[in-house]
Structure formats: structure tokens, C-alpha cells
């Protein structure tokens, strides 16, 4: 480490520092320290003449390391870094030490403050000795964006970006986009029909010149980092020729093989060749390979679709020889909008879901009230009759230590929505069993009030069980809902014909897979973790990857849309800047020192280190675009292989060791 020539600059800051610290003495003292070749004090170091001192000394005295003792580096580190740079010195060869906020302003005793300032300068000189020049790197941003999930969140984000005329790839796992919203009948609190407001958006997505829709597809691999992700998408075989299919549905009509429809929540059947629902986008059929007898028999049986398809979209060739395709994409940012799963209430045995015919979940009920649904929009019991009384049970799987501790946010409101619809369509008595009514959104409280006036009975109490064991004549043949009415303090037994369970919204069952694919972190409740709950709610620990909608937490449609737009804005701002500036003070690995133990990979929140095999030896490598320089890996590393530039152990130990005069 020969050839260190250190310049020290002690600032008076008018009397702000000089009033308490004898700056001249500090400068004089600094001049005696090893490797210090110039040491000056000056009235205002941050002023132009102050900065000029540094620049001139770089040129004239050949100083190659700079210590400025003045105010907080949080205030002027950048100023002095720039001064170094203007003087022709790498900006990272500066050490800025704080003798104002941390010294002159907080201490009164002049002698003690001066001693402390000397110590801080001494430590800074020791530390700057080890500073190395760093390069601030930039990387370009690919303007294409990948959106994963074609629910309302994904569609909205895709449209916002595409309307800015940037290419979007929208990957949806199911045969059609639409997500949960397209399954809903009417939406609270305005009760507008979900299909009516959503299908135009779906069509727009389907036709948009800047959106390439990859439906019935899944992301398989993501590599790279912000600005330049490489993505592999598996486009699953539909076993038909998509370019020929016009979605006429004749094949579906003729196909003799049936299973319960996923879209209809199992309340109706679909065929082996099917379009999940009438307004599906893309409007083409899909073949359920496991169910298709032609495929299963190797072309020996059935083949009805081939016979009836006039467009020639289904042929023996497509049925027997089509295989999945891998599409490779390059994008600069990714929006994950994979939504939620509905909690399966059959794990709560006391509610009798799947045991009793007329115990339904919210989504099942949505299908029942929907005019295009299995009952043509009529609220009917399994036996085809109309219910005379219906119980709606809130918080099923939500706000419950045994299942999910959190509130699912939408159930109170859709519970009220159902009460209204049932009353309206059947005139049946409706009982709402709730713990607390949470009606916090715009127009929600008003909606609650309006429903309360319709003669709905609200019972505050968590339901203990739903049973068909009658104890009175009146209860015979009914489902009896047993609960404590906590407002009255007495047990109630309410005999009804139908029970609707407001099941929780939970994180997707494959959320762990998706999280590791995209480098997301999950909260304890399973949903994806935002960078900062309050101040950075759509960013994630991985730069360039954003989250929107119910994959982040349960929320209603307006909130989902707002979040999707926020994520789109994030992606757009990246695109409009066109490049990213990388943190210079990041981690580096000394490969000869590394043992490939992976402790760094394990501890890093930002997924920057990866252990790989190099010539058969495991070593860690740092993705500098992901690293934030937090230093956690260097603490975890047992061998000292990782160090953080500008905050190396050598530097910090030198500083610490010099703080106390002995």
C-alpha cells in the first residue's frame, strides 16, 4: 500500500464547528498523521473556494486520498465526492467525517470536543488509506415487460403499459384470461355486473397491438436481473390449431366426454374439448388431454371433434403430435399478478362443507346467481327448489388462529351483496353471522346501511357448527346453524335451507414455487412481501420485479386495479429512464477464499449471491445488479471471502482501532 498521499480538510462551518472545536489544532494534528501530505482548515469547505482547495491539491500536491471533516456525510458526501471527481480523483477515494452534527453541535466542552474531532479525523485517515477506486456502472433497460397472471390486476397493468406503446407479454396459466373476477356475478358495492365491465377489457387485451397474450402458458425459468431478464415460458399444447379455430363450439357440443367445470366451480360439466366460458379470450378451444379418448387411445377411438370441425382446427395431427412449446422472452421488468386461492372450507369440519348439499362457498354462490351460470341465475337448492331461509357465515378461515390470522377484507362486503341478492331474487329470510362488520371502502358503509334496512338479520357470533340433526319439529329437514349471539349472550339455533360460507382468500397453493421463480419473499401469511408495506407497496426485494393484486394480500377490485396501475407506473418509469445506475459499494467474492457453503446465498434478502460450480469447485458469485451492499453476507461468511466494497473489514477495523487514543 505504498504511495498513499492523503489530504485532510477541516471545515470551520463559520462558527458552527469552529465555535466549539479548535479546527486549526485539528488540522495541525492531522498533518502529523502517517501518509498525510496536506492538512488544511477552511471557513466553508462546501463553498466553491473550499472545494477548489481539494481540486487544486489533487493536481498540485498529488494527493490521492481525501478526508473532509465537516458536517454529516448524509448532507455533503456527494458534494465532496464530486469535488474529487472534478479534480480527477475517483470519488470513492474520499472519507467524510462528521465533526459538526456529531461533535461541535452536541458538545460544550471545547477541549473535549477538539479531542473528539481529532480522534474522528485520525480514524478517517486510517480508513481512507484502504479506500479503493470504485466504478459506478450503468446498465440498459429492455423496454419490454412481462406480466404474469391475467386476472384483473394483470390485465390492467398490461393495458396501462401497452397503451404507452411498449411491448407487453401477458402470461396466463388458464385457457382464458379473466381470473376470479370473471367468475363473479355482481360486484359490491355498486352491484354492477362483473362480466359487463370486464369483458370489454378482456377483448381489449386480446386485440391490443402491444400485448402478446400467452394464455394456457406458464413461466418456467427466469434469469438475469433488472433491465434484462431472460424468461422461458411453456406454452402448453391445446392439441388444436389455434390459428384456425374460430371458437364456434361445435366440437364442444359433439364431444361425448364430461368432467365438472373448473370455471363453474364444479356446479356444471364441461367437455374434453372446451371453452371455459362464453366470453373466453382467446376464444379458442382447449383439449383436456387426460380426458380425451382419442388422445388416450392413440387415435383408435372417438374423434368426434375431428369430424365436426369445419375450420379444420382439430386434426389427428394436432391431437396426436402437438407438444408444449417453449417461448423465450427478453424483458426489462416483470409484474407478478397471480392472485389468490379461495380457502377450502372442508378443512373446517364443523361447517359441513362437502358434507351437506346446500352448504356453498362464495365463489359457488357467485356462479349460482350469475345469469350465465349453471342455474341460469336462479337461486336454487340442490333439489331445484328455492330456499326459504339462508345463512351467510363470515370469516370462514379468516381471523382465525387455526387457519388465517388476517382479515380477508372482501368477505363482509360480498356477504352483504349476497344478502341483498337473495332478498331481491327470492324473498327468503337472510341471516348474517359475523364477528365484526368491516365496511371501510368508498360507499361500503352506505351499502351496509341500505342492506340493514331490508330486514336482513345480523347475528354477531362465530358459528359453532352447521348440522342436520334436528331437535325440534321446525328444524327437521333443515340445516341448523348453531352460534352464540354475543350481543344477546345466548345460544341460537337457526334452521335454514342454504348456508353460504364466506371463505378466506389465501395465497396460491403454488406461491412458494412462484416466489422462488421470481425471487420474491413471502410473509408469514403466505402472500408476497412488498419492498416496504407503506412506502414501496408494489416493489419487491428483487429490483425490477413488481407485485400487484391479491397475490400481495386480499383486496377488492378497486384496490387491485389501483395497485396494478401503480406497478405499471413503476415499470413505465424504468422504461422511460432507459437505464439503471448500479450501486458501486457492493459485495465481491474472493474465489480462492470461498468455500461455496452458501451461507451468503441463504442470508441475502435480495438474492444476489449464488453458489455455482466452477471447475468442479463450488464458489459464490454476486449479481451486482441485485446487490444492495447491506453487508449481511460478509458477516455470515465464515472465511472472509465476501467483502463489501468501501466497507471492507480492513477499512472498518482500521477506523475502529484508531478511534481511541492509547
Amino acid at each position, binding site marked *: 500500500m505504498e504511495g498513499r498521499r492523503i489530504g485532510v480538510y477541516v471545515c470551520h462551518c463559520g462558527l458552527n464547528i469552529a465555535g466549539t472545536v479548535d479546527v486549526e489544532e485539528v488540522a495541525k494534528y492531522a498533518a502529523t498523521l502517517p501518509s498525510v501530505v496536506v492538512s488544511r482548515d477552511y471557513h466553508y469547505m462546501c463553498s466553491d473556494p473550499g472545494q477548489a482547495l481539494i481540486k487544486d491539491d489533487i493536481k498540485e500536491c498529488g494527493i490521492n486520498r481525501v478526508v473532509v471533516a465537516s458536517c*454529516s*456525510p*448524509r*448532507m455533503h458526501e456527494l458534494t465532496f465526492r464530486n469535488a474529487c471527481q472534478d479534480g480527477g480523483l475517483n470519488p470513492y477515494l474520499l472519507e467524510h467525517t*462528521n465533526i*459538526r*452534527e*456529531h*461533535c461541535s*453541535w*452536541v*458538545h*460544550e*466542552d471545547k477541549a*473535549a*470536543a477538539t*479531542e*473528539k474531532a481529532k*480522534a*474522528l479525523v485520525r*480514524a478517517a485517515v*486510517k480508513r481512507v488509506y484502504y479506500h479503493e477506486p470504485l466504478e459506478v456502472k450503468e446498465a440498459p433497460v429492455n423496454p419490454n415487460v412481462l406480466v404474469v397472471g391475467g386476472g384483473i390486476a394483470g390485465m390492467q397493468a398490461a393495458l396501462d403499459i401497452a397503451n404507452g406503446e411498449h411491448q407487453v407479454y401477458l402470461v396466463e396459466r388458464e385457457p382464458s384470461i379473466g381470473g376470479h373476477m370473471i367468475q363473479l356475478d355482481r360486484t359490491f358495492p355498486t352491484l354492477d355486473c362483473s362480466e359487463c365491465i370486464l369483458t370489454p377489457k378482456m377483448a381489449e387485451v386480446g386485440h391490443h397491438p402491444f400485448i402478446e397474450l400467452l394464455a394456457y402458458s406458464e413461466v418456467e425459468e427466469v434469469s438475469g436481473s433488472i433491465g434484462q431478464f431472460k424468461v422461458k415460458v411453456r406454452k402448453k399444447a391445446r392439441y388444436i390449431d389455434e390459428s384456425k379455430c374460430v371458437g364456434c363450439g361445435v366440437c364442444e357440443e359433439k364431444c361425448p366426454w364430461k368432467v365438472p367445470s373448473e370455471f363453474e366451480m364444479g356446479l356444471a360439466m364441461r367437455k374434453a374439448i372446451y371453452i371455459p366460458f362464453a366470453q373466453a379470450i382467446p376464444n379458442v378451444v382447449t383439449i383436456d388431454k387426460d380426458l380425451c379418448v382419442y388422445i388416450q387411445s392413440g387415435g383408435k377411438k372417438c374423434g368426434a371433434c375431428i369430424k365436426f370441425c369445419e375450420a379444420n382446427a382439430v386434426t389427428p395431427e394436432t391431437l396426436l403430435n402437438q407438444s408444449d412449446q417453449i417461448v423465450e422472452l427478453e424483458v426489462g421488468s416483470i409484474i407478478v399478478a397471480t392472485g389468490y386461492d379461495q380457502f377450502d372450507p372442508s378443512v373446517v369440519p364443523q361447517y359441513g362443507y362437502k358434507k351437506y348439499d346446500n352448504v356453498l362457498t362464495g365463489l359457488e354462490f357467485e356462479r349460482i346467481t350469475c345469469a350465465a351460470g349453471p342455474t341460469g341465475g336462479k337461486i336454487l337448492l340442490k333439489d331445484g327448489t328455492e330456499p326459504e331461509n339462508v345463512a351467510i357465515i363470515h370469516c370462514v378461515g379468516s381471523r382465525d388462529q387455526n387457519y388465517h390470522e388476517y382479515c380477508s377484507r372482501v368477505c363482509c362486503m360480498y356477504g352483504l351483496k349476497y344478502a341483498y341478492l337473495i332478498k331481491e331474487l327470492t324473498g327468503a329470510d337472510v341471516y348474517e353471522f359475523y364477528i365484526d362488520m368491516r365496511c371501510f371502502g368508498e360507499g361500503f358503509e352506505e351499502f351496509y346501511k341500505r342492506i340493514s334496512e331490508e330486514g336482513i338479520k345480523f347475528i354477531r357470533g362465530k358459528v359453532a357448527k352447521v348440522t342436520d340433526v334436528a331437535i325440534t319439529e321446525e328444524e327437521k329437514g333443515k340445516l341448523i346453524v348453531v352460534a352464540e349471539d354475543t350481543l344477546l349472550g345466548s345460544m341460537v339455533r337457526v334452521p335454514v335451507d342454504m348456508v353460504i360460507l364466506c371463505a378466506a382468500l389465501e395465497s396460491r397453493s403454488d406461491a412458494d414455487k412462484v416466489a422462488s421463480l421470481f425471487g420474491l419473499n413471502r410473509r408469514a401469511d403466505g402472500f408476497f412481501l412488498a*419492498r*416496504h*408495506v407503506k412506502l414501496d407497496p408494489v416493489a419487491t*426485494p428483487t429490483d425490477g420485479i413488481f407485485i400487484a393484486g391479491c397475490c400481495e394480500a386480499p383486496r377488492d377490485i378497486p384496490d387491485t386495479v389501483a395497485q396494478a396501475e401503480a406497478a405499471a407506473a413503476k415499470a413505465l418509469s424504468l422504461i422511460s429512464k432507459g437505464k439503471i445506475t448500479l450501486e458501486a*459499494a457492493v459485495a465481491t467474492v474472493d474465489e480462492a477464499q470461498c468455500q461455496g457453503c452458501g451461507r451468503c446465498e441463504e*442470508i441475502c*434478502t*435480495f438474492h444476489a449471491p449464488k453458489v455455482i460450480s466452477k471447475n468442479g469447485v463450488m464458489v459464490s458469485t454476486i449479481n451486482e445488479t441485485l446487490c*444492495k*451492499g*447491506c*453487508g*449481511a453476507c*460478509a*458477516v*455470515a461468511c465464515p472465511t472472509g471471502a465476501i467483502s*463489501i466494497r468501501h*466497507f471492507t*473489514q480492513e477499512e*472498518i*477495523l*482500521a*477506523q*475502529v*482501532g*484508531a*478511534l*481511541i487514543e*492509547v
Partner: protein
Amino acid sequence: MAEFEPQIIAFCCNWCTYAAADLAGTSRVHYPPNVKIVRVMCSGMVNPIYVLKAFESGADGVLVAGCNLVDCYYLDGPVKCDAMFAILKKLVHILGLEDERLRREMISASEGVVFARVVEEMVEGLKKLGPAPFKVKKGAVV
């Protein structure tokens, strides 16, 4: 004999506690000059050796301070710092050091006064305890 003046080295994260100390400065909240701050980017960056080295070089007390759990600029640095600190505490405990010489705090950027108070408390406590029992190793200071 002059009163014993304990030496404290404080490791403060750039985004919260260092900023809190800045705030103490701008609001002219006075505290004793016995503390010297080492700026680290995150409390999760504090290596046990930094603290041990502080004792080796003559510190009577060490403060490790950073953001509150939810405020960390790097999301979960404080959790990592806590884990490190738990091990460190065990080690200095076995060495025989009084537990009060090593302190962990979470002080947010708005808590200049809290920073000053913590320093005051430490100085007072350390004055009662007297100097740390380590003789500085020859040539230990780099």
C-alpha cells in the same frame, strides 16, 4: 485524580441511528463527548469482530444501533443484527464482561433525543462500572 471518562464506540446504521445522531446535532441536543460513531450502512453489517476490536483497542462500552425492525432500508438487517448480537453477547459474557458494556438499540431517524439519552445512560453506567478490564494489546491499533 481526574474522573474516569469511559470511551464508547457506537456502530450506527446510515439510514436511522446515524441520522438520529445527525438530528440530535441539528436540534442541539447535548450529550457527553465520550461516544464516537462508526457509520455502517446497515446494522446487519456489524460483524462481531468490529465490536471485539473496539474492546481490544480500549473501548469501555460498545453500542450497536440501527433501524427499528420495520424501517430497515435493506428490509431485515435488524433481524440479522439481532442474531449476530445474541452470539456476541454470549461470547463477551463468557469472557466475564459486564453485560451493560454492550448495548443494542433500535433508534429511528426521528429519535435524536433518544440517541442522546442512550449515550448519557451508557456513560453514566460505565462510570459506575469503571474501565473495561482489558489491557490493550501492543500493536493492536492498526
